[in-house]
């Protein structure tokens, strides 16, 4: 893959397509099959929710799609590119230019202000939005110069989202973004994600334990024991504000 390949995507294809994806951790008695053959297609610009019991392999899948980890076997493509064939350096470029992450525990840099945390990403992105604008999108225009320690959990998570969307990623991965938040704050965060999906056309994958979140997704994937147990396409999508927790 040449470096320019990331610029020349065939956008008519689905964002992700995988076949027989497996992931095995360890060997011998400590061997764990985290993914046991996942077949899945995720069209671009969709908001997808991943549900499933703990240990079913959701995070593992997310990490592989995000280029943080690689699959043991199976095929995986990102539009027209073969993700499984990328090396470490190419994966870094892939993350840098196309992917945003939001984690359960925010992972902000404590030594940078909210604005600077966002700038950390805009400084290295190709065509980022203004950092202040990204913060405004998550409703934190008044908290730009606060350090993480001066922000509530929900605010920190919104900064993390602002940081993730500021580079206008094609795909946003959120691993339990509301896990550490109360329902009201959680709803605000989900609302932000939904807006990003609508306004920027960003493909979003959300892993969550809150089944009700499914109502806001275009597509709901149920995971069990390393496999997809059920896949549902929603005809009607609820607004995040209307979700019951």
């Amino acid at each position: 893959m040449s470096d320019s390949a990331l610029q020349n995507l065939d956008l008519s294809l689905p964002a992700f397509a995988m076949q027989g994806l497996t992931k095995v951790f360890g060997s011998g008695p400590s061997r764990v099959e985290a993914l046991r053959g996942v077949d899945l297609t995720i069209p671009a610009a969709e908001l997808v929710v991943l549900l499933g019991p703990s240990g079913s392999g959701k995070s593992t899948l997310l990490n592989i799609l995000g280029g943080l980890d690689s699959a043991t076997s199976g095929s995986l493509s990102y539009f027209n590119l073969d993700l499984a064939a990328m090396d470490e350096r190419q994966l870094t470029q892939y993350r840098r230019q196309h992917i945003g992450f939001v984690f359960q525990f925010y992972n902000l840099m404590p030594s940078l202000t909210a604005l600077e945390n966002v700038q950390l990403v805009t400084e290295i992105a190709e065509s980022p939005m203004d950092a202040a604008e990204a913060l405004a999108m998550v409703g934190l225009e008044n908290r730009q110069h606060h350090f993480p320690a001066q922000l509530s959990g929900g605010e920190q998570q919104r900064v993390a989202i602002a940081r993730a969307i500021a580079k206008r990623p094609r795909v946003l991965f959120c691993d339990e973004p509301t896990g550490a938040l109360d329902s009201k704050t959680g709803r605000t965060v989900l609302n932000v994600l939904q807006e990003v999906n609508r306004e920027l056309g960003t493909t979003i994958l959300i892993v969550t334990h809150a089944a009700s979140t499914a109502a806001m997704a275009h597509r709901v994937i149920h995971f069990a024991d390393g496999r997809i147990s059920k896949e549902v396409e929603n005809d009607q999508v609820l607004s995040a504000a209307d979700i019951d927790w």
Partner: protein
Amino acid sequence: MLASLDQKLLRDLWRVRGQGLAIAVVMAFGVMLMVMMDGLINSLSETKRSYYERYRLAQVFAPVKRAPKHLLQQISDWPDVTAVEGRINGGALINLPDETIPIRAQAVSLPDYRAPRLNDVYLAEGRRLDPTHKNEILLLQGFANARGIKPGDHLTATLNGTRRSFHVVGLAQAPEFLYTPAPGEIVPDDKRFAVFWMSEDALAAALDMDGAFNEVLLTLPLGANSAHILHQLDQLLMSYGALGAYTLDDHLSNRFISEEIQQLANSNQVVPPVFMGVAAFLLYIVISRMVQSEREQIGLLKAFGYTGWEISLHYLKFVLLIAILGALLGCVLGVLGGRGLSGVYQLYYKFPFLLFRLDPATVISSLLVSIMVACTGAAWVVQRVFALTPAQAMRPPTPTDFSTSLRFGQGLLAKFDQPTRMVLRTLNRHPLKTLMSISGIALGMALSAGMLNVLSAFDRTLAFSFEQVDRSDLNVSFVEPLGPDSLYYLARLPGVLAVEGVRDVPAIFHFGRERYRGAVTALTPAPQLFRALDKHSQPIALPQQGIVLSKALAGQLKVQTGDTLLVDIRQGRRPKLPIQVAAIAETMTGAPAYMDLNALNRLMFEPGRVSGAHLRIDMHYAQDLYAKLKDMPAIASVNLKNQSRQAMEKMMDEGAGATRYVMMIIAAVITFGIVYNSARIAFAERARDLASLRVMGLTKSEAAFVLLGELGIITLLAIPLGCAFGYGLSALISAGFSNDLYQVPVTVVPTAYGSAAIAVLLAALGSGFLIKRDLDRLDLVGALKTRE
């Protein structure tokens, strides 16, 4: 089955094994030095004591020109004397066929039909003298070995102007000749100075000493007043030409060995504590970082019902394991090092045996010290563990608050990108931690800089003494002071370019309660070949009235310029002269006192006398010249400056001075250890942030910048501080190495600091490289999963 906490302990140890090992090694070096030096001090002083005792070394020495034997009876009747011996001592020159310069030697008498009551010899090889063969000698073993002479060999020596042939029947050593530099030098050179023992009758005949002696040896009962005895002896021997009685404390060989032991004891008080301090500091950093990152776990353990002590004990065990490992390693290294070093000591101090003996108490105390040091490092932990409440464990971690950190001028900060801001804020947010890291590295650098500086200072000592003070090629000394024609005679020899007379006169200096046995060195006006220099290396004009003291002598006597000394001249008419100190001269070997030649001769009523001369020669004629000098009966010795210099250089490089290199290496290892440790800790603390950066798409190099930038800034800040610490340390070390026999100047040698700075930078680069490697291997998912 291990308790689960102990299981954790082992896992943690394994996790931080690199750092743990580094600390254990630092500690081991501290313990090694302690064990090695303690053992050496112990072995040297014990061996010395038993050697002196077994061979009945005298406690009082009274040289005299020529005294009748019946005086000995009189002395032995004195109440405070346990044993008396009279003997004959004389300068000699040994002529070896393959040596152009005659070798200085000392002939010592042994009683013909009995063992000497005092100052016996240890026979290393061959047999004792047979009184019926007057030409037999025992030869100093060191000299014999250096020259390949064996029992049964013959050699010729000039005694009192007459050449005689001798038969070597045995090789011997004696406690009074433990350390045998040639007269006027401070470093022994086995090849160039000899001692031989011969029949008293034969020596008396050779030196016109029939029925007489020229040295009295005494031992005193415990607690006797030696000052009183010295005075009594001087009174008694006055009319026979007493040169001044002195005690063992002033005996040259004994002084060298005692100074050496003292010096070891001094550095033993400075160097190991520095190492232990560094180790404690490192342990503290590692353990405090561990407790900080495990605060949640500590809170949880408390919530489960573990007591503060149980948890503290867990961390203490961790520290203790490292300390004990270090101490044991140190003991082993110390014994190995001590054995090696005692071998080196035996090259210079001629003990018939020197066993490196380790006092078990040393091992125990070093173990205790390590444990104490470790506990000091860990004391903080206990306090921290107790301060934590279980409730803290339940709360999610709050990010470190950077809002209170000094806000850099926003304008200034705006110039930097975010990673640079992270670096600057981190340094700024934890000023104490930053300061600790900086001081840690500075301390490491100071060790290297200090050692290097002292190393170069030694070279300066040599250069100063042998290039600036003494600019001659060789010096000769006469059997007895001669008139000025001797100098004209020397000047006319082929190859002699310049001659400058000197006069060395034994003297005792008194000032207040201080007393120093030394000599006055009288120089010609405006000398060119041998000069007294001030601290700017400028020649000091010797006044017609007054004396110029070396800094070492002034220090010994506690006098300053302008004070008046009592100079008790021990030659000729033996005047006791009050003389004012006119100036202080910089010298690096010995403790000389300089006067103007004419002024001294005037005071002694002996105009024009010289006791020797400094010569500059044309090297093409050197061999001829040596041959001529060898045949001149008036010449007691010929001394080539380069040979003295080489002997000194050899001792600095191979002898006791070699410990400097060992310390140098240790300092370098420690410097690296500290730098690496700082980097490791920063890495561990930042692992999660770094992983986040990588997830966001920063390249490995970009992420590394955040970490290594911090290390870089800390290192750069540490360098000036390290220079300051280094200066202090080298002053301390110089003071420890200096005494009245030789002085190490505290000069700042810029290259020493430059090299140390380069070493620190290299260590930082090396550590950076190692950390970068770990960073490249960082498991992103794993690092993000673990909550700090």
